């Protein structure tokens, strides 16, 4: 970490010189990487950041020689003095896994589900070395304990599905480490993981890089991840590197205009009051007090959950996804719901939409009880016309066979209200909505695949507010988008909310995004709400131990704040109270 400048004397492990990659398909040539030069030195973590389409993943694939056959590559890539682009497929195969290893994004698909964990690590060793079985076994156990998998002897005999997501990624890293490579290329290694797990994996990478001469080329879109583990950072934009430098310099004093814009777009949490948090005993304030709901607002609530429990049934087994949750959202209020995957936050959102049956308690929408029904009564339909919904994936939330205009007009057709009567009124309303979400009017006749991700999400927003709802449920509305696009969609949502004053249940795993949107925040853990309060309170000095860990794990693009979080994280996990039940 001390290495803010590369050791000039050392030979670079990886030397990329004028690398250009383009893809040819259907007679067209699409450039992906446009002549970049980059060096990675032994023992350093170099982060390659950029938004989707910037060419960062293509660069990483070029390094390990796994580009598809439609790619044309030129330039030079040298690994420890050997040119990789000139190496034949056979030579590359010998290098891959031995001198350069890869860690992929999704640990579940990177591991073979039918092989034991130990066998997969052993395979990586025996692919490149002749080794006695006993020796291989010893090294497998050593690798597993090195990446921090508990009970390595037992785990080595287990299968990938018996491990948690974080442990799987540790195993993938162990495979990469197996032959002591000079360079590990990690392509978004923590993107598929929850924040608290992400923090653990980043700690591991940090430790590995510090304790050995293995270099890491870390491809990521997350500035917080960069601030956390990288020594140097290269920012990519449209196939070029716009800025390279030490992390602290680049993140705090960016010189390239693009880097500055990118950093401006990243939502930030205010500095947490770690002194206050660490001074207070963990869970000192009774959590009951924190969860207590101001009862006065109940009657006026746009949406209220009253001791709601929701079950999932599969093959006779029942799983309680949401347990005794009470929460009210006042009119015109934005309430953020945060938690990790599987915490039940999306389930709660779907129950509010009447898409899931409620096992116990009641969900009330403007005082009208919401239930999942086979056929909707007139009153149910009336109530539903008061809710809009925005989903996570702009690719799948719009029907690919409908034009933008018919997507937006659909709620108007279903509820023949003031806007729905007559084709002309509907068309006028659609155009008005397109204006409201700042999309050109001629987009009305386009199909969703002719729009970019951010534009699609704006169409989703327009559909959600088509009926002028009093409540909007936004389920991870920006987590599939790039940061700069996210900033624009959030701006659009914010200005719409100011204009139409609808209440909003804003579901997200990103604390900084929630902080920038919500008036109040509820934190969910395993189906229960562990803390509710104003955004400022919950996100700067959380009281519940879980909220604290969540906050400490949230990566911040500010290296100083990130360092503070790292120490707070160490302090919070030290008592080992919050260990996940593997």
């Amino acid at each position, binding site marked *: 970490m001390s290495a803010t400048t590369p050791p000039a004397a050392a030979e670079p492990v990886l030397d990329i010189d004028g690398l250009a990659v383009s893809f040819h398909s259907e007679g067209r040539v699409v450039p992906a990487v446009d002549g970049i030069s980059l060096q990675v030195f032994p023992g350093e973590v170099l982060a390659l950041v950029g938004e989707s389409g910037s060419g960062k993943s293509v660069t990483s694939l070029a390094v390990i020689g796994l580009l598809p056959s439609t790619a044309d590559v030129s330039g030079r890539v040298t690994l420890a003095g050997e040119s990789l682009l000139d190496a034949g497929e056979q030579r590359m195969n010998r290098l891959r896994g031995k001198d350069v290893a890869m860690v992929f994004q999704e640990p579940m698909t990177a591991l073979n589900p039918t092989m034991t964990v130990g066998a997969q690590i052993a395979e990586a060793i025996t692919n490149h070395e002749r080794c006695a079985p006993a020796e291989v076994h010893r090294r497998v156990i050593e690798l597993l304990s090195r990446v921090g998998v508990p009970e390595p002897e037992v785990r080595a005999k287990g299968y990938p599905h018996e491990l948690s997501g974080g442990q799987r990624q540790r195993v993938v890293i162990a495979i990469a480490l197996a032959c002591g490579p000079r360079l590990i290329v990690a392509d978004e290694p923590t993107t598929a993981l929850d924040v608290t797990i992400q923090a653990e994996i980043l700690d591991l990478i940090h430790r590995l890089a510090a304790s050995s001469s293995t270099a890491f080329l870390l491809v990521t879109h997350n500035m917080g991840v960069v601030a956390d583990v990288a020594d140097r950072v290269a920012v990519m934009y449209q196939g070029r590197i716009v800025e390279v430098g030490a992390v602290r310099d680049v993140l705090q004093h960016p010189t390239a205009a693009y880097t500055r814009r990118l950093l401006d777009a990243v939502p930030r949490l205010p500095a947490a009051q770690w002194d206050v948090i660490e001074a207070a005993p963990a869970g000192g304030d009774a959590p009951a007090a924190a969860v207590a709901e101001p009862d006065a607002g109940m009657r006026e609530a746009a949406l209220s959950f009253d001791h709601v429990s929701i079950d999932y049934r599969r093959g006779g087994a029942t799983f309680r996804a949401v347990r005794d949750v009470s929460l009210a959202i006042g009119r015109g209020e934005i309430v953020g719901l945060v938690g990790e995957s599987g915490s039940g936050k999306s389930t709660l959102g779907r129950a509010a939409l009447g898409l899931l049956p409620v096992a116990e308690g009641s969900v009330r929408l403007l005082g009208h009880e919401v239930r999942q029904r086979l056929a909707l009564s007139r009153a149910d*339909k009336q109530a539903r016309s008061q809710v809009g919904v925005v989903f996570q994936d702009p690719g799948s939330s*719009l*029907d690919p066979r409908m034009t933008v205009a018919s997507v937006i007009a659909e709620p108007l057709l279903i509820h023949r209200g003031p806007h729905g009567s007559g084709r002309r009124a509907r068309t006028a309303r659609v155009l008005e909505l397109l204006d409201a979400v700042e999309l050109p009017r001629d987009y009305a006749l386009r199909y969703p*695949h*002719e729009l*970019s991700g951010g534009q699609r999400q704006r169409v*989703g927003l327009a559909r959600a507010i088509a009926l002028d709802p009093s409540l909007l449920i936004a389920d991870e509305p920006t987590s599939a988008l*790039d940061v700069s696009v996210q900033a624009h969609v959030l701006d659009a949502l914010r200005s719409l909310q100011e204009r139409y004053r609808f209440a909003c249940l804003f579901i997200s795993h990103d604390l900084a995004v929630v902080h920038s949107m919500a008036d109040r925040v509820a934190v969910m853990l395993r189906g229960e709400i562990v803390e509710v309060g104003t955004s400022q309170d919950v996100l700067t000095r959380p009281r519940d131990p879980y909220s604290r860990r969540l906050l400490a794990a949230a990566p911040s693009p500010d290296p100083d704040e990130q360092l503070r979080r790292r120490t707070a994280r160490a302090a919070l996990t030290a008592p080992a109270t919050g260990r996940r039940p593997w």
Partner: protein
Amino acid sequence: MSAVVEAETAPAVGGVSPGRRALRRYLSNRLAIVGTVIILALLVFCFVGPLLHHTNQTQPDIYADLNAAPGVDGHPLGTDDLGYDVLGRLMVGGQTSITIGLAAGILATVIGTIWGAVAGYVGGWVDVVMMRIVDAGIAIPATFLLLILSTITRPSIQLMILVLGAVSWLVPARLIRAESLSIKTREYVLAVRAVGGSHARTVVRHIVPNTIGTMIVNATFQVADAILLVAYVSFLGMGLQPPQTDWGAMLTRGITYTYSGAWWLIFPAGLCIVLTVCGFNFIGDGLRNVFDVRGRDL
């Protein structure tokens, strides 16, 4: 801030409509072009041909030579055992074969799509019951069913279409159900449900249109299958009643005289069946390419 928007450029649409692009992709498949040409040529041959090559195909020509070789007496493909001109008969037989094949294929696709979409969308025990009916149907050989029917009743074109349609909707039903199961969990379907859209709207407007790729590709194979099935049944002598005929029936009659070397009674009809089935299959393959890539670059 506004400059960052440029970072995210919308996919280029530059004047090329999705339909155009699909057509281009279809035409880039050489076999699909061959299939299209074959089918168009056969259609012209069967439906326009009789206008140019006048023959009497309702009453046998009692003065004509029976089983005359090609070229004799102005019969380009000779005559059959009743004195019908074989070329003319091929056209008329083709009309029935293609009509029955197309109509039955379309009928099967329509029934199968509706059945499968509803079963997949509703799910639960409704799905179980509906799909067990399909399983049971598949267990009964269609040829067997057709033979029984033709012994009971006198087959007409309409009846053949109905029966063939009724036995061949099972496979599309299965395919569409699988598709429907995955589409109903997509967020755009949830979005319709969330604003209170009815089940009928969800199925008709969102689920069925999104299965169109599977639907159309399967339909082409259904048509080919139906034409073959007609040929089987006719070949076994249980098809349409004379003087109506189709390619399968022509084969049956002709096969009796193969030992006397009358190749012109079976080769042309057999070739037509093979060409039609291949043609429709090629078209199906081409269409599959068109619809498969949708996810990749559209």
